[in-house]
């Protein structure tokens, strides 16, 4: 009786082993490191970057404890924070010779310092939340209404030129709130306009309104088009944020969409909120200018004499380029940029879409400048970069522009992203901000850790004193629960926050309930005269139903928190729910395995479960 089959013991041992392995990285902690990653979408970090980092550090005699390349960039592990700072300065100088124009992000970082075999198994320490490591958390709200009106303004301009091109006479196109109204003088033109619009503007829903001489066509964006617009607006804003945050030199920024119109930005380790906000709120623009191809002027500029009204830029690929200061077109007119292929040559290309006013301007520019080069520049922080400088072959109308020639698919993708990400699709506003200083983070870890340890120790002492061996077994099961929980959190790389630590402590306090239930039941059975082995068996059996019921009700509360909670509540809920699941396993299976190991399969006279008091037997209690 009370013997587990071998496979059950093996399951428990394997579970404990896995729990131990995945908990292990948390003990090794993290070591200082420097991370070099690309600051530009078009620049890739590869083995060359790794070699440069290695040779730079070697030349300066900085000892590293390992260099490697991963998806984020080159990471250099260092012994202590002093060498970390030294290495950062060295690498900064080597990779960004011109501090005003950084090509790489060199950032301080922390790397798990567990042995390689652990990291290879995917065993990483728990991911600490901002309240434990310090940093900034922003929640930004994207102004979707703004995006919508911006789009409708562009559409009305499109409609005007479309109707003019098709020679449909109208009495004015106006945006009224979230719809566009077009006036007509007679029924016939309205019908004609309707056909034209339906053919050319599939995103619009059209309704006829008015009578007599006041005839109107009301155009609104179809719901699917609005949805698409919102999605692309939030994607574009996230892309822009990503590019900007790269400049901050943050090792592991989190940029995530929350809900339909919100973006959460978390910057661990960043203390300078003012700079962070400045960078997040900055606008970048696109400019189209003409290239000065006058013979001799480029040479003069290179010699130091930049001709009046022009600027010298270095094109991607390293060739110098003289660009006129006069701006022909700005990025405000750009509605989209997508990578693709040239229809004729099948070369990689970027397709740009301009709004109607932009198209008209672009048509004029190209007509007047066939055979010349124009430059597309991205202006950020008042500093421009030539994205591309193609030769104009023919007049380009219709607002569809294609940039092609000497581009790889990757470059086409990156350029399109850069152009799209250059500006925000819709204005954003910070609706939530949380800044946690690094000292507070470290203190929070200590506080959370202390609470858990002291609580656990007290429970352990009491349980062992009250239930003796069974108490010890319960405490071991509780410790196993802690092990499983930490291992699970490390495995899932869930973010651990202070409320999360509180949830660990609380879960442990609640998990002991299952073992108390079992131990009390066993005592009950013994009190009623059951032999020890039967008492263990029925004790565990009977307690299980109750344990299941009570855990499920607790789980219901946990899941509700998980669904509706945000921020700190969510951190609490995740750990709480996982803790309930691990406690079911450890309190029932692990403790039973231990009990069976000790008592199972042999004759037992009594159980070490503390004193079992029986009414009537104990005469010491006065009546």
């Amino acid at each position, binding site marked *: 009786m009370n013997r587990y089959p071998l496979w059950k013991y093996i399951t428990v041992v394997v579970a404990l082993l896995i729990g131990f392995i995945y908990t292990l990285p948390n003990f090794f902690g993290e070591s200082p490191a420097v991370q070099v990653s690309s600051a530009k979408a078009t620049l890739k970090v590869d083995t060359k970057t790794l070699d440069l980092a290695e040779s730079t550090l070697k030349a300066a005699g900085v000892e590293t404890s390992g260099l490697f390349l991963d998806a984020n960039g080159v990471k250099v592990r260092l012994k202590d924070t002093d060498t970390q700072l030294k290495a950062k300065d060295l690498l900064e100088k080597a990779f960004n010779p011109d501090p005003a124009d950084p090509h790489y992000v060199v950032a301080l970082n922390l790397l798990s310092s567990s042995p390689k075999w652990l990291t290879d198994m995917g065993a990483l320490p728990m991911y600490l939340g901002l309240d434990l490591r310090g940093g900034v958390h922003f929640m930004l*709200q994207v102004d979707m209404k703004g995006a919508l009106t911006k789009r409708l303004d562009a559409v009305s301009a499109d409609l005007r030129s479309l109707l003019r091109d098709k020679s449909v006479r109208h009495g004015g196109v106006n945006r009224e709130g979230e719809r566009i109204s077009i006036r007509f003088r007679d029924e016939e033109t309205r019908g004609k306009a309707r056909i034209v619009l339906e053919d050319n503007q599939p995103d619009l829903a059209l309704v006829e309104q008015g009578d007599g001489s006041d005839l109107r066509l009301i155009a609104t964006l179809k719901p699917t088009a609005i949805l698409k617009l919102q999605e692309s607006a939030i994607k574009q804003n996230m892309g822009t944020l990503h590019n900007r945050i790269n400049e901050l030199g943050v090792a592991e920024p989190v940029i995530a969409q929350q809900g339909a119109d919100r973006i959460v930005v978390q910057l661990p380790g960043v203390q300078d*909120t*003012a700079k962070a906000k400045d960078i997040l709120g900055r606008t970048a623009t696109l400019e189209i200018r003409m290239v000065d191809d006058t013979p001799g002027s480029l040479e003069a500029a290179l010699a130091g004499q930049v001709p009046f009204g022009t600027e010298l830029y270095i094109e991607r690929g390293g060739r110098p380029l003289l660009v006129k200061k006069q701006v022909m077109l700005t990025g405000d007119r750009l509605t989209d940029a997508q990578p693709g292929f040239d229809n004729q040559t099948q070369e990689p290309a970027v397709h740009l879409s301009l709004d109607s006013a932009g198209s008209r301007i672009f048509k004029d520019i190209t007509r007047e400048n066939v055979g010349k080069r124009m430059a597309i520049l991205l202006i950020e922080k008042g500093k421009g970069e030539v994205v591309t400088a193609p030769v104009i072959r023919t007049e380009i109308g219709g607002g569809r522009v294609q940039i092609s020639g000497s581009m790889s698919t990757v470059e086409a993708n990156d350029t399109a992203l850069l152009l799209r990400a250059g500006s925000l699709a819709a204005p954003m506003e910070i*609706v*939530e*901000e949380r*800044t946690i*200083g690094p*000292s*507070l983070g470290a203190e*929070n870890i200590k*506080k959370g850790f*202390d*609470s*858990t340890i*002291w*609580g656990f120790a007290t*429970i352990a002492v009491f349980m062992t*004193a*009250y239930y003796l061996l069974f108490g010890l077994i319960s405490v071991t099961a509780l410790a196993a629960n802690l092990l499983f929980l930490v291992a699970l959190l490390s495995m899932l790389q869930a973010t651990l926050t202070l*409320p999360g630590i*509180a949830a660990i*402590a*609380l879960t442990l*306090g*609640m998990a*002991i*309930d299952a073992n*108390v*239930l079992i131990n*009390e039941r066993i*005592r009950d059975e013994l009190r009623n005269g059951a032999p020890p082995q039967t008492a263990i068996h029925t004790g565990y059996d*009977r307690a299980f*139903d*109750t344990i299941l*019921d*009570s855990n*499920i*009700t*607790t789980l*219901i*509360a*946990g*899941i*509700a*928190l998980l*669904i*509706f*909670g*945000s*921020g*700190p*509540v969510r951190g*609490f809920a995740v750990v*709480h729910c996982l803790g309930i699941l691990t406690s079911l396993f450890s309190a029932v299976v692990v403790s039973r395995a231990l009990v069976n190991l000790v008592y199972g399969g042999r004759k037992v006279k009594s159980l070490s479960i*503390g*004193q079992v*008091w029986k*009414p009537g037997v*104990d005469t010491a209690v006065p009546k």
Partner: protein
Amino acid sequence: MEFFRIKKDIPFMRHALVFNVISLITFLLAVFFLATRGLHLSVEFTGGTLIEVNYSQATDLGKIREGLGKAGYTDITVQNFGSSRDVMIRLPLKAEQNSAKIGEAVMGVLDAEAPGASLRRVEFVGPQVGRELAENGALALLLVIIGIVIYLAMRFEWRFSVSAIVANLHDVIIILGFFAFFQWEFSLSVLAAVLAVLGYSVNESVVVFDRVRETFRKVRGLTTPQILDHAITSTISRTVITHGSTQVMVLSMLIFGGETLYYFSLALTIGICFGIYSSVLVASPLVMWLGVSREHFVKPKKQIEGANEDGAVV
């Protein structure tokens, strides 16, 4: 060791009425304080800015108040927490101020008026976010209630699920009543604690109800109050030990957890104490008033026509 040497079942149900009256009074008081004083909601719910700074030496709060007042900030609260060196500044939402920049602006004022402050924490919450958090909190509460009622009704009986949820909502209201009475800050983590308590103390009722059901099935010839008394008495040892253990953990958080976990663990402490009381002394009488009886648990044996005493049909 055996703490509970109880010879006979304690006649809890004889005093059921008294307990229910006590509960009702506490409950009404809690509602009264909630209505008159209201909850002291944190910036997470109301929106606004909270700034926590730390000085290397004890600092004069008056100076900070004065300085901020001069800089044009109204309706601010400046207070110490933890020690005289830690200062917490709360600013309400103002439409005309650029709320996102408030943190820096305040630090600027502090540097001028009371230098030496190091920024520990800034929390800014916009008005819309605050409202959403409050709504989501209410929804979470509702979901927990519905979920628990359905589960208990399935596992036990509707009478049990109704009494359990009434008893535990009474706990929740009382916790909120405490927060209203003492004007403790009600933050998101307190809300989490309240919901955790709800799940936790239902768990307590479940343990008692489990025994009730078992006793109904096993023991014949006892009246309903006697059965309830027996169930409560036989689980009381476990009740006290379990809650003691959980309380030890919570206490440890209360002592070591610092400011952030303080109100969280305080809410849990009240919740645990009233959780014991309500699940034993509120839920059980309610079950009794609702008229639970043996028939609700013991399925009547099907009488097959023509069957003899052994149930065999020829």
